[in-house]
């Protein structure tokens, strides 16, 4: 492949291609919403799991650890079977829509965010909690302080979740269908351009994907850093 052709494709994509920007925007929306849903449910659940003791906790945690590596294509397949016209949720007509992609990506991101939050809380020195309590903190105050202590790890959970789903292609292809103007995201567009033999275009779209992923990570890292400075 020629470097020049790649630069031309990149320039074309970055400067004047509305279609690619629409695809990029859809990617941010789908993966962003899936991450937010996973955070809204997974973060409290992971924290609760870390702070509560009950029999069978290790078993549940083993399932979550297992789920952190859940193959996206399996998630895609399961969501497909649910959403098919003649599947159990077929009446909702959700197959091949961005909503279906959000569902599949949530299924992928959720265990990652639960697992990372659990680990983040568990990795804070457990004696700290007793120290807070002995200093006169109420139980919920001690928990809250512990969460604040673990914030670096909790944000890492969000970064890992978003990173995984924005990079995922199998599930999006299966439940979204890579439909132009409707469910085409950057990863599925890349696969399609490779199928068409437009390698320069595929590389240019990949570059946009990398830029978006980095921007999000940069934002979250900045948030992490801000918090850290505040403690000192």
């Amino acid at each position, binding site marked *: 492949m020629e470097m020049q052709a790649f630069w031309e494709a990149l320039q074309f994509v970055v400067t004047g291609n509305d279609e690619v920007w629409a695809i990029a925007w859809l990617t941010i929306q789908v993966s962003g919403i899936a991450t937010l849903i996973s955070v809204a449910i997974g973060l409290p659940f992971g924290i609760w799991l870390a702070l509560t003791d009950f029999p069978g906790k290790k078993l549940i945690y083993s399932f979550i650890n297992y789920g952190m590596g859940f193959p996206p294509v399996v998630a895609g397949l399961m969501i497909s079977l649910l959403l098919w016209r003649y599947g159990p949720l077929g009446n909702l007509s959700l197959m091949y829509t961005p909503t279906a992609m959000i569902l599949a990506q949530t299924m992928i991101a959720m265990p990652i965010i639960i697992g990372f939050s659990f680990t983040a809380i568990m990795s804070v020195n457990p004696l700290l909690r007793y120290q807070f309590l002995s200093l006169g903190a109420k139980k919920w105050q001690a928990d809250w302080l512990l969460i604040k202590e673990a914030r670096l790890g909790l944000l890492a959970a969000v970064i890992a979740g978003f990173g995984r789903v924005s990079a995922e292609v199998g599930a999006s292809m299966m439940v979204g269908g890579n439909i132009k103007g409707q469910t085409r995201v950057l990863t599925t567009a890349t696969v*399609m351009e490779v199928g068409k033999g437009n390698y320069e275009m595929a590389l240019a779209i990949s570059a946009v994907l990398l830029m978006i992923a980095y921007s999000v990570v940069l934002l979250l890292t900045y948030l992490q850093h801000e918090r850290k400075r505040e403690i000192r």
Partner: protein
Amino acid sequence: MKFNKSLFLSICMLVIVFATTACGTQKEAAPESSKAPADANLILATTTSTQDSGLLDVLIPAFEKKTGYKVKTIAVGTGKALAMGEKGEADVLLVHAPSAEKKVMESGSTINRQLVMHNDFIVVGVANDPAQIKGKTTDDAFKAIAAKQALFVSRGDDSGTDKMEKQIWKDIKVAADGPWYLSAGAGMGQTLKIANEKNGYTLTDRATYLAQKKNLSLDILVEGDKKLLNIYHVMEVNPEKFNKVNKDGAKAFSEFLLAKETQAMIAEFGKDEYGQALFFADGDKTDADLGL
């Protein structure tokens, strides 16, 4: 606490932005036609070759503009597309595996099967041609490849092209198996690339080959055999069997494909870019004309 507040606020902002824009994208572009269909969503299951050759990028926008339907094109192998039809998960099919199509018609899953267009399959390989197949008939070429155990890359994905290839092996009674026979499980573009990298032979449709040619050092070695016709039919999924099918949309799409202007678009497609048409329009022909 100060920071937590700002984090909370920024997350809230993000949620609002996402929520509003998500609503925004769901607004459908108003169709030019005044008679907007009641059920505008239409699922077209078709083959990768119609997408990878770029034909759909020309046809679908024209159809949407003309009728107001919003087409969800699912480009998969013909085997999968037919399976979607058999389960009522698509409304209309544009596929290229005549004998498999007939079976689906007989099962009553689809109706109104009509000839749309054809092009042809070709056997491609590296120029030094280790099995010496150039200029042979398809059957002899495949026999020579098997006898020489020269590397052959198969689609292996139950697509129309794959079905055609499997039929040829069956016709010449050769069990295609062994280290010389690679089953790629990939689309046509990817399979051509594999054959290219591994110096193998493969069977391809002409449209995808021409569209990919700039990346390949494979030459056409066998062509023009009557056996190698690649024929596309449109079929509507049977609304009497599957009540959720968008039957008006399916009918409109199949009428659109056979309309004179569309047939002219198909016949012209590719002439600018490749100097030759990628498909031959067959709307006014019957299966018998193509020797089926």
